[in-house]
């Protein structure tokens, strides 16, 4: 079976998604984890734009990568940076 370029792009993005999620789980430094989570959201936003859902992609870019990350950063700033 032949694999089209668009499919290959999908597979690459999906691999990146899983890697980002694993990195969020494995990172002990919460600040780094929050930034990786932001990157995860941005990759998800690319996936959705490629799926023909630009509205959802835009919301995810603004909310998931923007506001959620900012809130996480604030909460980490008010509490502790490293998990035990």
């Amino acid at each position: 079976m032949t694999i089209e370029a668009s499919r290959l792009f999908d597979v690459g993005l999906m691999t990146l998604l899983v890697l980002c999620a694993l990195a969020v789980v494995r990172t002990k430094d919460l600040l780094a984890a929050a930034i990786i989570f932001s990157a995860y959201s941005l990759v998800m936003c690319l996936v959705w734009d490629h799926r023909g859902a630009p509205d959802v992609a835009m919301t995810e870019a603004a909310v998931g990568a923007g506001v959620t990350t900012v809130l996480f950063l604030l909460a980490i700033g008010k509490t502790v940076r490293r998990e035990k």
Partner: protein
Amino acid sequence: MIGALWSNFDYAVSVVLFLIGLYCVIAKNNLIKKFMGLNIMETSVFAFIVAIGVVDRGSAPIMGPGARGPFVNPIPQALILTGIVVAVSTTALALSLIVRVWHQCGTIEADELRELE
């Protein structure tokens, strides 16, 4: 089954992401980390529902001059828009509760909190 999973690749990735998020929620002790896991679970469910709406070679459901079908299904997208907003609302509330817990108890590790009682 492998062939079916390959053609339903998106769905399989959603399941994997969901399980990674679930692992983070169950196994991690830090409350903020648990919420990152919960956010991963949420996005995986969103990805799954958006994937249900996709059709082959579909373009975004925006009509108007020059738009040519097939279009992808707009209903899952509308649902997910609502879902993302509710997700960030719960995250904001949960994080403010966590900050409050930190002020009251001086720790945000779940097992230490359990010992405090």
